[in-house]
């Protein structure tokens, strides 16, 4: 397929344009349909990115389908977006969730429709920008851009404690991101002096080649990693999440769990590990310990919840712990697992929040005690719930297993976090996930119907089934045939890890005041398409 440089920018900004359009529409129906059309077209266009991207072509020099426009004349900040193996799937996940979120909000949102849909569309642009940016300053702008719509979505359309949750969300995130801004500027000046002829630069390709001196690495690592750790969220910085999730409207929870948290793990992988490889390797163990604590701790706290939405929120703390563990494992299998797990978590937790939203719309309660036995009255809803629960619990054959298995087996082999005890404790997550999820199902869906109101609960309508089916289909597809998806990122991940390792070694052995610059490595001996099955020959 021909190179389509404008396509990516179109995908990124189409929702924002749509937001403007939606803001001027009069009728509620027009707002809904326009939002659906915009997100739908965005999704279809984004499929062009999948077709246009070739995982075999090197992205060592530049990303594919890229656009690069100078932005501020005198400094090296540019509008630089593109696709490589690391971000392709996350961009597609974001555009896929777009129409699903619009459909899930169809009847859920009961007030100020224009504002809600406009903010949602704006949010989509922000998230797409975050994933597509190859300029750290641009990344930062998009990163902050996602904050504002999300705050309003929680604060205006949320539950009873929405304002508290929204402010908590703002303060937490802002603390992190402002520190990151300091880090971005600092790194930009340092890199500018060292590798860019004294001109401030935030170009990812220049920064990734620049070996930050050891002492500075730790300071900058702290500034960047804190922002992302809050976003993930990593234990013990997670307490904004349950409140934000519980209070947000369904669409907000889906986008939060589905893609917003991934900005944290993606940031760690895209920036922290390759920019500061020495610090990352040194500090991998403490971070991995926090991640593993999060896996077990999140699961146990989830188990204690009586609010079904809060339970799923804490399950995110547990699941994202796996992803962080994998990111810091410096192992291809683990990092590949982390990348696919980001997508998996977006699908399965997204589906869980959608289903909980559907239950809330019918009964206006999130307390498990208010349900009980509804499998009898809403079998279709129950089916999708069980499906998503088992995907989330990592049942082989569904998507969750693929990521968890690769993360754990890779971490077991890892040079940085490969402590058997640590990985074994992380693996107990598979037991705990079954514990809290199955008892949630038990309390909510099984037994006799104990509340009168639940006897007349309506099962899913066509729209609701329609928005869950693609998610379920993808969970199954990624569970049985993830290799085409894994192939998209295999080389990019290897390139990232090899570059980081080369750079770490170079920085380690560099003399004082020596400027270290390491070219981005590009592995060539990677089989991206499986060789033909030998059984074909045997059959004839």
């Amino acid at each position, binding site marked *: 397929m021909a190179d389509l440089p404008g396509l990516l920018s179109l995908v990124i900004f189409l929702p924002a344009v749509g937001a403007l359009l939606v803001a001027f529409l009069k009728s509620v129906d027009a707002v809904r349909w326009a939002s659906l059309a915009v997100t739908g077209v965005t999704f279809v266009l984004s499929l062009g990115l999948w077709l246009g991207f070739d995982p075999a072509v090197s992205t060592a020099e530049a990303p594919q389908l890229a656009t690069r426009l100078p932005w501020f004349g005198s400094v090296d900040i540019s509008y630089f977006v593109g696709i490589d193996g690391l971000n392709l799937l996350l961009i597609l996940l974001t555009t896929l969730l777009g129409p699903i979120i619009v459909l899930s909000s169809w009847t859920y949102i009961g007030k100020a429709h224009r504002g809600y849909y406009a903010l949602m569309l704006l949010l989509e642009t922000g998230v797409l920008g975050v994933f597509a940016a190859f300029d750290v300053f641009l990344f930062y702008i998009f990163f902050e851009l996602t904050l504002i719509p999300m705050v309003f979505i929680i604060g205006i359309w949320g539950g009873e404690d929405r304002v508290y949750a929204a402010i908590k969300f*703002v303060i937490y995130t802002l603390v992190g991101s402002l520190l990151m801004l300091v880090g971005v500027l600092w790194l930009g000046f340092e890199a500018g002096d060292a590798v860019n002829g004294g001109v401030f630069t935030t170009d990812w390709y220049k920064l990734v080649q620049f070996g930050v001196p050891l002492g500075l690495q730790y300071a900058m690592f702290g500034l960047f990693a804190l922002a992302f750790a809050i976003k993930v969220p990593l234990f013990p910085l997670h*307490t904004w999440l349950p409140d934000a999730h519980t209070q947000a409207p369904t669409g907000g929870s889906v986008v939060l769990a589905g893609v917003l948290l991934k900005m944290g793990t993606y940031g760690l992988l895209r920036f922290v590990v390759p920019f500061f490889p020495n610090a990352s390797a040194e500090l991998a163990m403490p971070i991995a310990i926090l991640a593993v604590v999060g896996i077990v701790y999140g699961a*146990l706290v989830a188990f204690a919840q009586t609010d079904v939405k809060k339970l799923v929120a804490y399950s995110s703390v547990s699941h994202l712990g796996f992803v962080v563990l994998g990111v810091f494992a410096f192992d291809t299998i683990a990092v590949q*697992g982390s990348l696919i797990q980001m997508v998996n978590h977006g699908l399965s937790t997204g589906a869980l929040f959608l289903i909980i939203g559907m239950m809330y719309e019918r009964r206006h309660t999130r307390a498990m005690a208010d349900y009980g036995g509804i499998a009898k009255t809403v079998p279709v809803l129950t089916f999708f719930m069980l499906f998503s629960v088992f995907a989330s619990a990592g049942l082989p054959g569904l998507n969750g297993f693929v990521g968890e298995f690769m993360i754990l087996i890779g971490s077991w082999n890892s040079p940085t976090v490969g402590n058997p005890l640590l990985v074994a404790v992380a*693996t107990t997550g598979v*037991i705990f996930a079954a514990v809290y999820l199955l008892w949630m199902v038990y309390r909510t869906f099984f037994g006799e119907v104990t509340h009168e109101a639940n006897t007349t609960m309506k099962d899913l309508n066509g729209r609701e089934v329609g928005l869950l089916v693609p998610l379920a289909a993808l969970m199954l597809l990624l569970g049985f045939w993830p290799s085409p998806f894994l192939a998209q990122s295999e080389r990019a991940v290897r390139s990232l890890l090899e570059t980081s390792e080369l750079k770490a070694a170079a920085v380690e052995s560099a003399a004082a005041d020596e400027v270290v610059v390491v070219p981005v490595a590009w592995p060539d001996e990677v089989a991206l398409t499986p060789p033909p*099955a030998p059984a074909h020959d*045997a059959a004839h």
Partner: protein
Amino acid sequence: MELLVQLILLPPIVIAGLNGVMGLFWPAWRKQEWLLGGLALAAVAVPFAVTCLLFFGFEAAEVVRYFTWLQAGDLRVDFAYRIDELSLLMTMIVTGVGSLIHLYSIGYMHGDDGYWRFFAYLNLFIFAMLNLVLAESLPVLFLGWEGVGLCSYLLIGFWYTDLKNSAAANKAFIVNRVGDFAFLLAMFIIFKTVVDAQGGVFGLDFATLLQPETLALFAGPTGFWVTVLLLIGATGKSAQIPLFVWLPDAMAGPTPVSALIHAATMVTSGLYLLARLSPLVLNSGALWIIATVGAVTAIMAATVAITQNDIKKVLAYSTVSQLGYMFLAAGVGAFFVAIFHVMTHAFFKACLFLGSGSVIHSMHHVEHELEHKGLIPSHHGPGSHDTPLDSEATQNTLRHSPLPYDGPFDAQDMRTMGGLRKFMPITAITFGLSTLAIAGLPPLAGFFSKDEILFRVFEFGQSAHIGYMALWVVGLITAVLTAIYMTRAYLLTFEGTPRWPDSMDTHPHESPWTMTVPLVVLAGLAVVGGFLGLPPVFEDLGLPGSWIHGWLVGHGDHLGPVADSLDPLWASVSPYYEGEHHVSHAVEWALLGLGAVVALVGIGAAVYYFRFGKRGPEADRKARKVFGLFYTPASHVWGWDQFYNATFVRGTVEGARKVFAPFDKNVVDGGVMGLAGLVRRAASGLRGVQTGVVQTYALAIVVGVVAVVALVLFV
């Protein structure tokens, strides 16, 4: 070959999907019982036919490869399946017994609201089980392993309106997950060991793993830990100490499920795993752990089985006990004997379970008739609102209960049965034959397989370590106990006089043909199945040797898939092989005789004690008085459940509710919010700025960003 394997694997999953989706979205489909049940049966019968084709035309082991599942770095797992002697035998059992049980279910589940769901789950189970036994790599095996766990969960909790069933389902899945956790760790160790030593791409496939140079990597402590972890995994799936506690509760599922999943197939997967990796296990130094786990479980569960009144509970503990025998066999490196017992056990235990289902089915009719006559309080399942058990009305009825025990009518309680042979002769005869088979009466199937296990333990005790002689004694005692509890179950159910109320006028009936045909076939197999593994000493009589030994272990210079500790073919792998036979033929004959005597003693004792069924539950009460010291703890399963509830369950529940959740709220969140409060107080001077309006904050952010940009641009 590729197509044939597809014909084995695809029908169950396609029909499961069809029945599931159609049933879920199109209620009219649910009423087509014959159609959807027939389709489901065909989805297992076709694979059975194909397996027979492969089985009888078998020439050499072959691996069929479809597409890549997981690929990253050095890991590459394909959907590949291995057709060899072991996998074909297991596939025969799974699809053969599976077909019979599908046929049986068509009758048994007739009229159930969830008929469509039942068959969708059952087909899904067959698919998962076939993945398990045919897999060429550990991850694909694990896919089947957890898949059968899922189906077990779905089917135990099949009647989900009763929370007891759902709780049992949860227990099964979670306890199995503990085992799966160990299984995962074993895979991690195997992967790292092989990749570190050999480099290159590795997919945890058996072809690589079982090569001599790879096996050499596992000769030391690595192999020991891998085996111990896999054993823990196996104790979960195969219900051994310490993870057996889920299986008795699993009887909450419909009875065909108990027969198929919780007796004949799924619970044997742990043994299959050990047999598949037998060359590794044999050399791991962990055999004694496997043997001990097996022997202790066997005798423990057998003592419990004697004390149970629920017919399915007797069979459940019996299954645990018989699985213990299989582990004992594996623990002396006689993996083929373990698989032999898997097979014979599949025949007689499936028959026993289906027989008990037939009994329960007819006792339910008795129950409905009694309810109709007003002789027992009517109920619509436990937990019903109409007549809660503690209501005065119910209590009054219970006080004058016509039942031989306190409590509501229970169609599974043997104390209400008795004399059923008159009413359901086919069920009684098949059940009786299977009882004799499991009791080890020659020449039925159980005699040969159990005797071969005991013989191998004896032989191993002579040649490897004298400590195994203690396990042999345990095995013998268990054999007596087995004969006693099964004979007791048969007598209480089918002999003597009926004990349900109004038994003169309320009669149970024999089940329909769909249910009795499988019973007859299975009972026939339980009678003749043992001839596939005749003791080697029979060759003295001019009889053929053990077919299953030649098939699995190897014959001539052909090496089979299953290693054996005392076979010259596997001398290179087995550290226990020290030349030919240690046990003389005379001793072998004596041991065979001893086995027969043990069975007769057990059967005879039970027949005498219960006066061939003339004495009923009162005999049990007497036994409780006499043997109280053992009887009472045995009837409480030796306190395993209480122990787990008091430690792990309570620890997790209370820990989560009383420690972790409050800690999260007060310490983690409280700490952060406290810090925020501190900042706020410190900044009280700037209170005018802090408006509390989010828009203002947003504005402040924008202003801040612009300021920073300006800074960057102009500095």
